[in-house]
């Protein structure tokens, strides 16, 4: 490899460890095998009753259980599993002594229904108000729930377990959170504030209220049967995303520090970009300018031209609006080169892992670079004629891939993109 600095004189940021958990399984190997075989992790929800719900399927991680059952507890456990895998691969620092900061993308936290109902039953009356709830809340009976339902609790647990340094940062940029966690790590290393950073994104929040909330915003697919066919990115008959759980973790290091300790370099985070859309709380600006600007900022940050990108790991949620907007904006940025760029959406198989998606998909993008094989977009039976991407439909495709753009767009005008490469550019 080349000099430790990029063409802008900044430290090159490399990836030396990765971990992933999705509904397909735990670990890179299992995920990659199923992902490239076109398997879906989406199934009918069995964790709680689905009566009365419009969307009854999700990419739940059912092979991991936590006690007591909370989404935040599962979120924490998924993050822990992905981090363990990433640290084992990176072989950095000592056990419980990671030599850098933690940036954690995590879903917003709040008291959950099982605990709320438990509190209600503790009152011992059948008609009550918040005053009565408050009367039984204190005194030590529910102390553990304070800790569990603090926003900083997951990061605090990871920081203690893995010995990350300094104040861990918990962040949310909605569906772009995973990309933002990586971006914060890249920035810290480029500033020279850290030689290594642990970037983790996690989401275990498939619970009744979360499903209902997205359902009420008409964001979810209601094609419940069969569940594996629900997520249809870029298809004409797509009707929404499928909620899912998962976690992705990455050990980022400066090229200099990684090579000094003889670490195996898995890839490079060549560029990050972000641009806010101020048009609407859930919808993109109709002219697509913020998304176009986000992708262009990312290319500029990496010092790459559009024709140097040879694969796009799309946000591809399968909502009618996202996929159309993503195509229209990508077409503007990549112009005549676009037909030559294979595009795929991992969400067709693992669903939308919300806060985790950006990191999960960055891990898959690096695996794509490693294996020179692009995972398919499954359920691509009826292409949307208005979306002229070269979609890697239904079966994986071998391809020469040197630079991948991974896009994430979220509620609240959040747009973030990453460019991942095999070698420094």
């Amino acid at each position: 490899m080349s000099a430790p600095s990029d063409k802008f004189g900044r430290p090159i940021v490399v990836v030396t460890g990765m971990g992933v958990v999705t509904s397909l399984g735990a670990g890179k190997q299992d995920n990659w095998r199923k992902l490239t075989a076109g398997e879906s992790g989406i199934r009918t929800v069995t964790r709680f009753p689905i009566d009365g719900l419009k969307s009854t399927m999700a990419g739940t991680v059912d092979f991991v259980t936590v006690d007591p059952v909370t989404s935040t507890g599962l979120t924490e456990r998924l993050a822990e599993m992905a981090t363990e895998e990433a640290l084992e691969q990176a072989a950095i620092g000592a056990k419980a002594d990671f030599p850098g900061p933690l940036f954690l993308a995590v879903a917003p936290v709040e008291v959950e229904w099982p605990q709320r109902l438990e509190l209600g039953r503790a009152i011992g009356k059948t008609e009550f108000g918040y005053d009565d709830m408050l009367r039984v809340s204190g005194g030590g009976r529910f102390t553990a729930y304070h800790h569990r339902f603090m926003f900083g609790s997951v990061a605090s647990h990871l920081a203690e377990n893995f010995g990350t340094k300094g104040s861990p940062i918990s962040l949310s940029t909605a569906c772009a959170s995973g990309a933002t966690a990586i971006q914060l790590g890249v920035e810290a290393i480029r500033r020279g504030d850290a030689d290594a950073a642990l970037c983790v994104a996690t989401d275990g929040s498939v619970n009744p209220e979360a499903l209902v909330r997205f359902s009420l915003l008409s964001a979810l697919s209601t094609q419940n049967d069969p569940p594996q066919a629900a997520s249809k990115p870029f298809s004409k008959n797509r009707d929404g995303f499928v909620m899912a759980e998962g976690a992705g973790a990455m050990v980022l290091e400066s090229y200099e520090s990684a090579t000094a300790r003889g670490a195996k370099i898995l890839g490079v985070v060549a560029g990050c970009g972000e641009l806010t859309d101020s048009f609407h709380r859930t919808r993109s600006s109709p002219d697509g300018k913020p998304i176009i600007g986000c992708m262009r900022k990312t290319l500029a940050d990496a010092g790459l031209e559009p024709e140097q990108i040879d694969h796009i790991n799309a946000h591809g949620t399968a909502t009618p609006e996202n996929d159309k907007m993503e195509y229209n904006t990508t077409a503007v940025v990549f112009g005549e080169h676009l037909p030559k760029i294979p595009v795929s959406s991992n969400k067709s198989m693992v669903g939308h892992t919300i806060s985790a998606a950006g990191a999960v998909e960055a891990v898959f993008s690096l695996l794509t670079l490693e294996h020179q094989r692009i995972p398919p977009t499954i359920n691509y039976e009826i292409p949307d004629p208005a979306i002229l991407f070269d979609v890697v439909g239904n079966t994986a495709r071998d391809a020469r891939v040197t630079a991948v753009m991974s896009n994430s767009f979220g509620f609240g005008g959040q747009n973030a993109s990453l460019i991942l490469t095999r070698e420094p550019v």
Partner: protein
Amino acid sequence: MTEPKSPAAKEVWITGIGIVSSLGEGLDAHWDALNAKKINVDDKRFAPYIVHPLAPVTFDAQIPKKGDQRQMEAWQRIGTYAAGLALDSAGIKGNKEILGRTDMIVAAGGGERDLAVDLAIMTADAKGNSSPAFLNERLMNDLRPTLFLAQLSNLLAGNIAIVHGVCGTSRTFMGEEAASIDAARIALARISSGQSDIALVGAAHNGERSDLLVLYEFGDFNLKEKYAPVWQREGGSGFALGSAGCFLVLESREHAEARGAKPYAKLTKVVADLAQRKQPGAVTKSLEALWPKLGVAGDSGHLITGATGVEPVTSEEKAFLRQHPGFAVRATGTMFGHTLETQFPLGLALAALSLSRGALFPPNDPTGLEVEKADSPDQIVVVGAGHWQGEGMALVEAVK
């Protein structure tokens, strides 16, 4: 971790401040209230719990569209309002060119739940009336579709983007008190290293919420029965939740000078840590370890703390303060209550305001821990130790 490598770190100025709280809105109102030692508490509405309620505010002044106001919960309105005040104060309100590349870091919790919906479900459950489908059906039928967006943490930033057009980058940090310490720390690091020219940083908190009282009551953190200043809660420790929004505009000195902006102060350093609070004295130790990283000149000065009033952290912070007896201390919790994510930006704002007015506001403490200090400050230290975790400090200095 290594020390920053950049020898040419840029000076970062605080050029805009927006505050709205139980004491009023804007800098003059707060300066007057602090000098008059005003405290605004409500001990009836949530009795026996005490809160510092938001002073009357005409949201239309910063959020002109009623439609926007309706889309927000109180915490988002408070924050969007304070952000607007900060942009006004920095002189960049409506300046599309600058706002289009202004970076934003918001420290946020989440929004209020629909208490009526929750109670209806809980009471039905307590009566044994809940079939497996009951929870799903009630939520599907009774939740307002847009309530989710009013609760989502990153939607305060989203609303600020929509209402004020701040749309460079947008990041929301979560994690109670530490979230805003880190927001200031990262914004400062980005600007001083040249990764950003200008940023809007802050937080908002609605302390008038039964659901939050329940959450903090789980840990017995709420102040009950009778209001007392932060340093005088030996009889019953706890915090009184406060409503407040506070935002700062931070920018590089070059950027500010190029547009002719005047600074209130400069933000020189922000440091933070996460002590594992398992042994007594962990917070004292953590704060002591942060202190030398600040670059405080001499052994006397001025210090504003967001001390919560809960134990053991407040006593541990007192032990730290006793090791720096030359510093005149002010606890914002006495006047503003505990505003969680907003407490640290509030400390930064009051430090910058005090430096710009050439005086620290007077003590408001019957225990004598806070003392008068008449000299004009050059530096003010801002301290934050979260009620359950997270410690941080900042050094705010006069621009000469």
